């Protein structure tokens, strides 16, 4: 079975503080992992994907196969980072479905 776990439903940090949103996955194949973000009153959109190894809006995420984790990090949080964040796994071995975690609501306090 494929599963994505985001243990924190709510996370608050002060502006300028580091932030880490946790994501753990369970998948029997080779995973493709993504972070999606939903800002207030906007649609869900891609933030970053592990295969690109990119930094988007200051966020990075490293796939750790040993710990089966894909945590999202940013060294200095900004107010505009306040949003709902979803970790997603693409089950490429079994048909390209995307499975999403339950999401973490990030609030950056001014």
């Amino acid at each position, binding site marked *: 079975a494929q599963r*994505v776990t*985001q243990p924190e*439903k709510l996370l608050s940090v002060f502006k300028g503080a580091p932030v880490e949103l946790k994501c753990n996955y369970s998948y029997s194949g080779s995973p*493709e992992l*993504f972070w*999606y973000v939903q800002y207030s009153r906007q*649609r*869900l*959109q*891609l933030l970053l*994907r592990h*295969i*690109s190894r990119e930094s988007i809006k200051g966020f990075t995420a490293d796939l750790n196969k040993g710990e089966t984790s894909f945590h999202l990090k940013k060294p200095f949080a900004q107010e505009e980072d306040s949003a709902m964040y*979803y970790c997603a796994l*693409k089950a*490429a071995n079994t*048909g*390209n*479905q*995307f*499975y*999403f*975690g*339950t*999401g973490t609501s990030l609030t950056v306090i001014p």
Partner: protein
Amino acid sequence: GAGVSQTPSNKVTEKGKYVELRCDPISGHTALYWYRQSLGQGPEFLIYFQGTGAADDSGLPNDRFFAVRPEGSVSTLKIQRTERGDSAVYLCASSSRTGGTGELFFGEGSRLTVL
């Protein structure tokens, strides 16, 4: 269109009624996904189309749910004999290549309320 379009944006219906939700994907996108999002939960996979055919419908909760994509573009999610537990936001997403990086482009969702 410029993005994935879903209609209606809001639908209120009574228990037992039939409902159709429509998704118009980004032009040229061959893959189309339906998700259901209940309050406080992440998007729950329902069904995925590659072209006209359902490549995976394992997420449909029961036989009251059905989806079609007859011409490989617009898709309709159909729910028969609606129940209060069907109340949720139904999200549609499309993707240009299932074998590639696979970014999903989402619509704004159709909020279904079953009274």
